[in-house]
C-alpha cells in the first residue's frame, strides 16, 4: 500500500538518485537533515508548509503518478498538481456530459447524492441519540426534509433542501460535542473551534475524493449537483457530500470528544479561529488512519478501506452514466 505524505515543515523537495529528497529548513534558513522518501511508496503529497521545488521534480512526480495538493497559510485548499491523465475514455466523458446537460438525467444523479448525504447524516445523529444526547428535534426535521428530495424538479430547489438539512444537522453539533460550542456554521473565516475543524476536515475530504476520481475515467470537472466551473474540480464536491458525514464529521466528533484536539490547538485571531500546526498534525494523522481503516463490505464480501469506498462510488457513477447500472449512493449500514 502506497502512503500519503504530509509536508508541514518548510523545505526543499528535489529529485535525487531517482527518488525524492526532502531537506527541511528552519526559521533561520538553516538546512536540516535530509530525508529520503521512497518514490515507489509515495501515493501523493499534501503540502502545508512552503515548499521549494523545481520543474525537474514535477516531471519526475508526473512520471510516477504522484499528485501534490497545496494548502495556504490559512489552511485553504489552493490547488493540485495532477499528473497527466492515464485513464482516458472518451466514451465515459461523452456520457458524463450527456448526463449533465439533460436536466432530467442530471436531477436523477443529484437527488441520489443528497439522498445519500442526508441518510448518512441521520445515521450520525441517531448514533449519538442512542448515547443519551437529545437530538430528536434534528432527526425529525431531517426525516421530514428528506421526504421532499424525491419530488424536486430543479437543482436550486434541491440545493435549498440540502441547505436546510445541513443547517438542521449542524444545529445538533453543539449537543454531540461535549466541551465546545458551535452555534452557527461560519466559514471564510470560521469563528470558533468546531467551525475551524469542519472547514479543515471538509477540505481534506474534497482532496481525498479528487484523488480517487483521478484513478477512474471520470472527468473531475463535470459535476451534477454542484454547478461545474464554479470551483475547479466540482465532481469531488459532489462525491464529498455523501462521504462528509461518514469520514469528516465522525472524525471531528471523536477528536474533540476524546480530547485529542483541545483549545490550545487553535489560534484565536481577530474574528477568526484556525487550527495551529499541532492541531493540524493530530487531525491529519487521525485522518490518514481513518482512511486506511477497513470495513467488511456487504456486497463485495471483502474488507474494504474507507479510501476504497470512495473509489467504488466513482465506479458506480461510471456504470450509471454508461447505462449499465443505476447509481445508488453509499449508505452506512452499521
Amino acid at each position, binding site marked *: 500500500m502506497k502512503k500519503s*505524505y504530509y509536508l508541514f*515543515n518548510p523545505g526543499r523537495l528535489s529529485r535525487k538518485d531517482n527518488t525524492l529528497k526532502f531537506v527541511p529548513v528552519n526559521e533561520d534558513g538553516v538546512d536540516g537533515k535530509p530525508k529520503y522518501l521512497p518514490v*515507489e511508496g509515495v501515493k501523493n503529497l499534501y503540502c502545508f508548509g512552503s515548499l521549494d521545488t523545481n520543474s525537474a521534480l514535477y516531471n519526475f512526480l508526473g512520471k510516477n503518478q504522484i499528485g501534490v495538493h497545496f494548502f495556504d497559510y490559512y489552511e485553504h485548499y489552493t490547488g493540485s498538481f495532477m499528473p497527466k491523465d492515464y485513464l482516458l475514455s472518451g466514451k465515459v466523458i461523452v456520457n458524463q456530459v450527456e448526463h449533465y446537460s439533460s436536466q432530467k438525467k442530471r436531477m436523477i444523479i443529484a437527488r441520489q447524492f443528497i439522498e445519500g448525504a442526508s441518510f448518512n447524516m441521520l445515521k450520525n445523529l441517531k448514533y449519538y441519540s442512542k448515547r443519551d444526547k437529545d437530538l430528536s428535534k434534528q432527526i425529525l426535521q431531517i426525516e421530514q426534509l428528506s421526504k421532499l428530495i424525491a419530488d424536486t424538479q430543479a437543482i436550486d430547489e434541491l440545493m435549498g433542501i440540502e441547505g436546510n438539512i445541513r443547517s438542521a444537522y449542524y444545529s445538533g453539533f453543539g449537543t454531540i460535542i461535549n466541551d465546545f460550542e458551535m452555534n452557527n456554521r461560519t466559514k471564510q473565516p470560521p469563528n470558533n473551534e468546531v467551525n475551524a475543524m469542519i472547514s479543515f476536515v471538509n477540505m481534506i475530504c474534497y482532496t481525498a475524493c479528487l484523488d480517487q476520481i483521478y484513478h477512474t475515467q471520470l472527468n473531475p470537472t463535470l459535476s451534477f449537483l454542484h454547478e461545474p466551473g464554479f470551483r475547479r474540480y466540482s465532481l469531488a464536491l459532489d462525491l464529498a457530500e455523501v462521504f462528509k458525514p461518514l469520514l469528516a464529521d465522525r472524525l471531528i466528533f471523536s477528536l474533540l470528544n476524546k480530547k485529542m484536539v483541545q483549545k490550545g490547538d487553535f489560534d484565536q485571531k481577530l474574528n477568526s479561529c484556525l487550527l495551529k500546526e499541532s492541531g493540524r498534525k493530530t487531525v491529519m494523522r487521525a485522518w490518514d488512519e481513518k482512511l486506511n481503516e477497513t470495513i467488511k463490505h456487504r456486497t463485495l464480501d471483502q474488507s474494504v478501506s474507507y479510501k476504497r469506498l470512495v473509489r467504488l462510488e466513482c465506479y458506480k457513477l461510471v456504470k450509471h452514466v454508461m447505462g449499465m447500472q443505476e447509481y445508488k449512493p453509499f449508505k452506512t449500514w452499521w
Partner: protein
Amino acid sequence: MYVILVYDMDKRRVVKMLKLCRQYVNWIQNSVFEGEITEVKLKELLASAKLIMDEETDSLIIFKSRQESWLEKVVIGKEKNELDNLI
C-alpha cells in the same frame, strides 16, 4: 508486504546499493532499510540489486512480514531516522 532489508557490500558498491534501496524502502540505519513494498516491486528491486552485487562476496538479506503490525520494533539508543508520513 512489509520488509526489512539489510546488506553487506564492498565499499566500492555500497553507495550504489544505498541509492537503489532509497527508491523503494525507507532508510533506517546504515545498510538497513524497512518499508511496505509489493511483491512485484520487490522483484524489481532484487533484479536491479543483482546487477550491482558481486554475489561471490556481497550479501543482501530480506526479512519479510505479512504486515507491519505483526512486527514488533524496538529501538535502543538514538533512532537515526523516524519513519513518519507527517514531515
